[in-house]
């Protein structure tokens, strides 16, 4: 089998035609061709897992119709092409319906068409292997023991819960302050679950206007509303058999909450403008930085939906409570940044480490990443000195320099956003990009008058 990587089975009881097919298909040195004259012989050899099978329709021990099912039961993915002198169109249609990939009539062009069928099959296999490789890479990326860095006691508890969540389809609610990595936890659960080869579909509820959310989640039919010029499937259908990650679920409009609850209970959706019920099999993971129970008490979040979504709660601790994790994560970010930017390896000085350990990180890991990236850029040598981190903190409004002042997280965050808005001349999109926050979050805060901007901006 040296040098050969494409196994072809030829089932043809006519010795002459069998010889021709065998010879023709063996012309490519990558092919290993095995010939059979009865269906029973071929079935016995299926454990060799051929990539491609040609079947004659009429066989001494049955016909291709019966054999197709038996082959498909063992090898559902194998490419099967019927090569037959049988020219009855209905027979061909029936065989294609039963799972044959192609039907070729024996004539002067059969061999050319067979060659094309094999070429297509190889391309399909190559694409499949590429997808599998990519899926493996993604799974490795979200192998939570590697993707989520941490050795602290609170994080060990988080890992234990992620492991439990990945084993079942239970709804998971991920809570924690902004920047603690809730999306990373959602991905880690999905890519370590049995659904990992199916889609992971994230939806940021805060980033989508309320009036578009129903269509976004459930899809719409053409003409169902102004602007619905084509039919569109929603996120639930997109995530079918996979995982739907509803980020910032606390921002969902109360009227849509009732529809979401119904979908979660019935496991079926109806597109906007349609009466057709579409069953969906979706695993739900939600995240919020809000205290949903408090929202329930305020009447802005439905109690029944709250209990439906609560499922397994994974609360991510803020970085300041994660003991020495900050240094492990900082080291990872330094390596990542240097690698991505072709910089020589760098490391934190003792003083810099001490400062990071003492810092409160109101923006959590997102803030740490920002500090580290800038520190790497600012430092000239291998060592990231204290001066560099001080310089970094000095350029970050309300940051390390104000640690001694007792401030609430919300006040700190608002101050940070306000300073950046002023720094970038109230360019909301720029600030959203620099601070890695949703622009809709900024617009909401501006709308609520929690951030001050000149009239012309908003």
């Amino acid at each position, binding site marked *: 089998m040296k040098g050969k990587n494409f196994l072809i089975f030829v089932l043809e009881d006519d010795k002459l035609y069998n010889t021709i097919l065998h010879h023709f298909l063996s012309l490519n040195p990558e092919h290993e061709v095995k010939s059979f004259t009865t269906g029973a012989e071929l079935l016995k050899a299926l454990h060799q897992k051929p990539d491609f099978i040609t079947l004659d329709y009429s066989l*001494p021990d049955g016909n291709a119709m019966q054999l197709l099912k038996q082959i498909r039961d063992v090898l559902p993915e194998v490419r099967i092409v019927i090569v037959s002198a049988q020219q009855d169109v209905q027979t061909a249609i029936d065989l294609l319906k039963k799972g044959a990939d192609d039907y070729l009539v024996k004539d002067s062009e059969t061999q050319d068409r067979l060659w094309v069928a094999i070429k297509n099959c190889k391309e399909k296999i190559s694409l499949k292997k590429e997808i599998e490789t990519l899926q493996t890479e993604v799974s490795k990326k979200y192998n939570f023991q590697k993707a989520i860095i941490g050795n602290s006691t609170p994080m060990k508890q988080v890992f234990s819960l992620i492991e439990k969540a990945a084993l079942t389809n239970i709804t998971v609610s991920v809570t924690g302050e902004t920047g603690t990595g809730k999306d990373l936890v959602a991905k880690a659960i999905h890519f370590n679950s049995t659904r990992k080869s199916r889609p992971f579909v994230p939806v940021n509820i805060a980033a989508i206007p309320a009036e578009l959310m129903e269509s976004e989640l459930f899809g719409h039919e053409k003409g169902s509303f102004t602007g619905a010029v084509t039919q569109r499937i929603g996120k639930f259908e997109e995530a079918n058999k996979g995982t739907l990650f509803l980020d910032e679920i606390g921002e969902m409009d109360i009227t849509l909450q009732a529809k979401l609850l119904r979908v979660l209970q019935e496991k079926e959706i109806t597109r906007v403008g349609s009466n057709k019920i579409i069953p969906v099999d979706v695993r739900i993971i939600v995240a919020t930085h809000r205290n949903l129970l408090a929202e329930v008490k305020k009447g802005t979040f439905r109690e029944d939906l709250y209990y439906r979504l609560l499922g397994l709660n994974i609360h991510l601790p803020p970085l300041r409570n994660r003991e020495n994790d900050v240094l492990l994560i900082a080291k990872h970010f330094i390596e990542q940044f240097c690698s991505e930017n072709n910089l020589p390896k760098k490391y934190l000085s003792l003083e810099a480490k001490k400062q990071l350990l003492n810092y409160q990180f109101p923006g959590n890991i997102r803030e740490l990443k920002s500090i580290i990236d800038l520190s790497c850029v600012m430092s000239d040598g291998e060592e990231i000195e204290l001066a560099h981190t001080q310089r970094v903190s000095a350029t970050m409004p309300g940051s390390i320099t104000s640690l001694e002042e007792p401030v609430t997280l919300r006040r700190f965050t608002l101050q940070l956003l306000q300073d950046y808005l002023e720094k970038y001349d109230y360019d909301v999109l720029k600030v959203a990009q620099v601070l890695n926050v949703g622009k809709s979050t900024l617009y909401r805060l501006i709308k609520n008058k929690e951030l001050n901007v000149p009239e012309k901006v908003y």
Partner: protein
Amino acid sequence: MQNSNIMYNIEQLYDLSGLKEIHQNDEAFIRIIKEAFINHTPADATKMLNACSAGDWAQVGFLAHKLKSSIDILKIASIKDDIRTIELNARQQKQLTSLPELVQKVNIVIAMTAKQMNE
């Protein structure tokens, strides 16, 4: 079961030009094809003749179907239509009285083709 009314073309009964073209005049392959024909096809034709004598029309239809592609590949033009008629009529069990003569013709032409190939 010989029938003196059947006339046979005594010129070469087969044409390998198409096969040679596809397989780029691969002499070794053409030899293998000839051997495969000589070793298997006349035997199948004889089986069809026996099945016809026994009135086993399903088997006649099956063997005619099997022989059809060999006849097409080797371009044995004199029986190209006959083998299709045999297959169709045997499967549908119609005009059965005409089948023995056609089956015999096919049997003889295939035997003669094999003989020509051997020469």
